[in-house]
């Protein structure tokens, strides 16, 4: 008799524990929101507090610089950065990740956020990016034009059509009537770059800015057909932000003259 009762106690404890766990799970986003609120609560006319900026992976170098410049200009502020693929970031924000600013590598992913009514005001376009052919420094397949990529025997790596750089590749292919037979369709532009820098592929299609970042490890070959597919980068304040003043100030820096300079130095175009 005593044994079953103890089992019941055990089960009850188990139930309580799981309920506790469930409580944790559902409480988490709220809790983080709360801490952001605390940070934002001390907002005064002068900018203070912390914001979290979710930015497309291709913005890593430029946004890191812009954020540290911004912090230096406005003591007491802190810009936390989170870089990933734009579609990952949108998913995270719609699932309740505490973002204050979202900068996307394409309008499609920003539209997902505006459709979900999760932006504060209309997004602003702040940069453009176009494709460029990336080859290993020795250019083993002697690539000099977009049409060369379709030559038999050339190992070309592109992005899959599901991701922005792949969609751009698709557009260029259609506009030029060239059909590529890639050996791999990667899920991100960094994976394409990796296959080229390691010498596995003869050529890859990446962004102009990626070629610039990669430096001497790869050689970029611009091609005129690339202007058929121009990717526009929009930026917006996330609707749930607890510090919209700071978010707006950072966006102003990105879209302003300072942002323009840093972005164009990295190879981005102006929209």
């Amino acid at each position, binding site marked *: 008799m005593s044994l079953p009762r*103890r*089992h019941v*106690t*055990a*089960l009850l*404890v*188990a139930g309580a*524990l*799981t309920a506790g*766990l*469930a409580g944790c*799970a559902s409480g988490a986003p709220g809790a983080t929101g709360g801490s952001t609120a605390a940070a934002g609560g001390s907002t005064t006319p002068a900018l203070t507090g912390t914001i979290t900026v979710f930015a497309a992976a291709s913005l890593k170098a430029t946004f890191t610089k812009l954020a540290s410049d911004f912090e230096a200009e406005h003591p007491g502020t802190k810009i936390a950065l989170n870089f990933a*693929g734009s*579609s990952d970031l949108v*998913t995270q924000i719609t699932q309740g990740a505490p973002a204050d600013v979202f900068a996307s590598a394409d309008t499609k992913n920003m539209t997902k956020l505006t459709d979900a009514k999760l932006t504060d005001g209309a997004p602003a376009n702040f940069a453009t990016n176009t494709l460029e052919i990336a080859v290993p420094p020795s250019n083993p397949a002697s690539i000099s034009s977009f049409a060369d990529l379709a030559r038999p025997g050339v*190992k070309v*790596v592109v992005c*899959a059509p*599901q*991701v922005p750089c792949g969609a751009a590749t698709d557009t260029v292919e259609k506009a030029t009537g060239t059909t590529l037979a*890639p*050996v*791999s*369709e*990667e*899920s991100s532009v960094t*994976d394409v770059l*990796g*296959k080229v820098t*390691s*010498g*596995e*592929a003869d050529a890859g299609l990446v962004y102009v800015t990626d070629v610039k970042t990669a430096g001497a490890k790869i050689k970029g070959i611009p091609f005129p057909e690339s202007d058929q597919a121009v990717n526009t980068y929009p930026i917006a304040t996330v609707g749930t932000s607890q510090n919209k003043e700071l978010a707006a100030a950072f966006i102003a820096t990105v879209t302003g003259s300072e942002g323009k300079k840093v972005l164009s130095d990295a190879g981005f175009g102006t929209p």
Partner: protein
Amino acid sequence: MNRRSGTGYTGIPPWIYAIAAAGAVFVLLPLVAMVAKVNWPQFIPLITSESSLTALGLSLRTSATSTAACVVLGVPLALVLARSPFPGQRLLRAFVLLPLVLPPVVGGIALLYTFGRQGLLGRSLEMAGIQIAFSTTAVVLAQTFVALPFLVVSLEGALRTAGNKYEAVAATLGARPSTVLRRVTIPLVLPGLASGAVLSFARSLGEFGATLTFAGSLQGVTRTLPLEIYLQRETDADAAVALSLLLVAVAVAVVGLSYRRPRVDAAPEGAFR
């Protein structure tokens, strides 16, 4: 079974059940959450789309091949590690088990520098006309690399548990080493070998990072089910969830298979002692 019903005593304090239940919930809850997210009306069309079926077929084919490779390479490795002490054995074991703890993407990078075009062996292979990068062979290599330790660990454990008494007896009766291996050792550890192979298969099926880094991603050639899920997630969350559930179902079936076997076969072994 018999031993337990003899006393009815499990030796487990009741509070352990509470923590065990919490542990089980921790593992099961995410699965439940995923099942709850499945778009059921679209489930069948989503998992039977051409790209899904191609990915599933490729996954099953490559996993079966890499499991076979694991058995071929892993059985001798386990035998050497379990039976014959030699200098550097501990070190060898540590390195064989390394892929267990290595992030798969690191494994992919290592494989790239081994079998890639510019790699250690890849350059000679390329001259011999063999190209591994971006081929299904690359997928199998990546899977074998990450799955091999599972087979070696299970089999080495089984070999140590079985001991070498029967082998010694067979040898004194005049059986040559190869005969002992074939007639005594392997049959004795067959359950361990089977569960090791099943675990290797399951690990191969879930392989993602090394494949993505080393083999690339092309439908029908290198895009296995996990890579397809990763890609679908970019545009079609419903498809990604449906495919994830499919992968979970296959994995559960495979692992379930593995954990029934040893228990059934362990009974007579225990009775011997």
